[in-house]
């Protein structure tokens, strides 16, 4: 079993202090503090400021930024950097995220720890380059072909863009999985106070390097937590990395047994460790007639709607998903027997809504407060659904 190995952050990447930063810039600082030293990207609105800042900061930190020819190249360059020993990420928005899907699958299959930042804008296609959306959350989960699990995280403030980037990198190392950092344009371009602590107070999970000598090391032999240790290219171990189904040596094995063993482990290493990964915020759930579930910028808009509903005497609770994937299935099932109803507010026409509905399993009403994107909900739109949910419950 390979336990988490934390060490204080490298002070070179930590810009300790108090700043008035937007979410994109804070995300960049979070990555640097987490030890990210390689970024490949193809700048795209509304994520451009992340790489713009990284490219300016990189020379002083000893990091590297490469502006690639496109998103396909970006999403594979970072994986090369990881196998060379670096921590790496790429940064994009919807149209670029679509182009990266194949390589997200490769990172899953080769268990390459890395971070994909998606500052979401309105889609489909080129959609609304400068305006917000939250419609890529299912794509983050299911966008690449094949069967797999990933981790996705959603910040709701510039401070969280910093803080949660540390989690994103740490979790990607612990589980050797690509982590999707699902921002939205509003959070990316919103400016607030951001506190960056001293490096000694930032715990960074180091890569789980093997301590086995030479031929004893098998690059895909898992530890008890189902995650294998890594080696660096050129350090004397033999290893082979392929997108084909492979054995513990990493060699292609094209049969059903090898497939079952590998895919099962790739899924179980996330599902069986879900409780360690999942982070949600809960408020006022006891006796709640309606629970509003949201994430990212929408959770802050929902706060206004919740306050308005309370003024009208409704008992409203709130759940904010900080981790989008894996979905907090166990908790939602449990709550479905305790609370009156759910309202899911998101800037799309129903994505996490279906997860909540699935877990509620018909025990309580689940209503969607949808939005097509381009801006956030008005608090009144969410309030209307809260009142509707309460009425459903009473009838």
């Amino acid at each position, binding site marked *: 079993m390979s336990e988490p190995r934390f060490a204080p952050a490298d002070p070179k990447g930590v810009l300790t202090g*108090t*700043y*008035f930063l937007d979410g994109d810039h804070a995300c960049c600082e979070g990555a640097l503090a987490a030890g990210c030293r390689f970024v490949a990207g193809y700048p795209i609105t*509304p994520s451009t400021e992340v790489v713009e800042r990284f490219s300016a900061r990189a020379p002083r930190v000893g990091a590297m930024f490469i502006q690639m020819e496109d998103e396909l190249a970006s999403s594979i360059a970072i994986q090369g950097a990881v196998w060379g020993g670096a921590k790496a990420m790429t940064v994009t928005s919807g149209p670029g995220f679509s182009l990266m899907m194949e390589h997200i699958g490769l990172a899953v299959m080769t268990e390459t720890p890395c971070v994909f930042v998606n500052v979401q804008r309105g889609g489909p296609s080129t959609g609304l380059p*400068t*305006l917000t959306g939250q419609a890529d959350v299912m794509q983050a989960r299911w966008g690449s072909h094949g069967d797999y699990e990933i981790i996705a995280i959603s910040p709701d403030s510039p401070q969280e863009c910093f803080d949660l980037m540390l989690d994103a990198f740490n979790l990607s190392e612990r589980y050797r999985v690509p982590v999707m950092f699902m921002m939205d*344009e*509003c959070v990316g*371009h*919103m*400016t*607030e*106070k951001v506190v960056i602590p001293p490096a000694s107070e930032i715990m960074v999970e180091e890569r789980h390097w093997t301590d086995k000598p030479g031929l004893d090391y098998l690059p895909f032999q898992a530890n008890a937590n189902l995650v294998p240790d890594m080696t660096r290219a050129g350090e004397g171990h033999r290893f082979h990395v392929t997108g084909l189904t492979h054995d513990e040596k990493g060699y292609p094995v094209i049969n059903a047994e090898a497939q079952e063993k590998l895919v099962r482990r790739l899924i179980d290493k996330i599902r069986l460790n879900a409780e360690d990964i999942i982070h949600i915020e809960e408020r006022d759930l006891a006796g709640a007639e309606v629970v509003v579930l949201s994430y990212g*910028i929408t959770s*802050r*808009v929902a*706060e*206004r709607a919740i306050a308005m509903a309370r003024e009208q005497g409704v008992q409203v609770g709130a759940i904010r998903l900080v981790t989008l994937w894996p979905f907090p299935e166990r908790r939602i099932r449990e709550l479905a027997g305790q609370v009156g109803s759910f309202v899911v507010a998101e800037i799309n026409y129903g994505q996490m809504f279906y997860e909540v509905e699935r877990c509620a399993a018909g025990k309580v009403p689940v209503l969607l407060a949808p939005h097509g994107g381009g801006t*956030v909900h008005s*608090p009144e739109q969410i309030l209307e659904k809260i009142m509707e949910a309460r009425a459903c419950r009473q009838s």
Partner: protein
Amino acid sequence: MAKCELKIGGFGGQGVILMGIIIGKAASIYDGGHATLTQSFGPEARGSACSAQLVLDEAEVLYPYVSHPNVMVLMSQESYNKFAPELTADGLMLIEEDLVRPDPQPNGARILAIPSTRMAEHLGRKLIQNIVMVGFFTAVTGLVSEKAAREAVKTSVPPGTEELNLKAFEAGLQHGKQLAASRA
């Protein structure tokens, strides 16, 4: 600090966003309150309409958008025409007096004017007009302390221009104080 929803409007190139950053920074970092800045983000270029929106509060800002602005800083006629009707009836409006003609007058709201562009020109650079306005804002609204605003100006302008910008800030501040005294 009382809760305030502030809208700053002008044209691209006037330093609307920087003004928002300075006030937000003063309130949240140096005065210890909370501030959230959002901006209309689009393919805007120099000369076109531009706005910054700030929510200032003692408590943490949850809902981050300005829905009922009670303070406005307007530095172009276009922004006046567009935003003035949104100002709350008991609101306060600061205008660049050479660039904004407050017609029609908003209902009930107080208007305070400053020739910030002319003042900046007298100080040597038209570019620092927005900092003159920050000084004026600090004096007449009381939403941020002088000390915090001065510190925020110093840490937000390009290195090497601090002195000039602080002069602009003081000019705006004095203008605001005199105006307040003459009305008292």
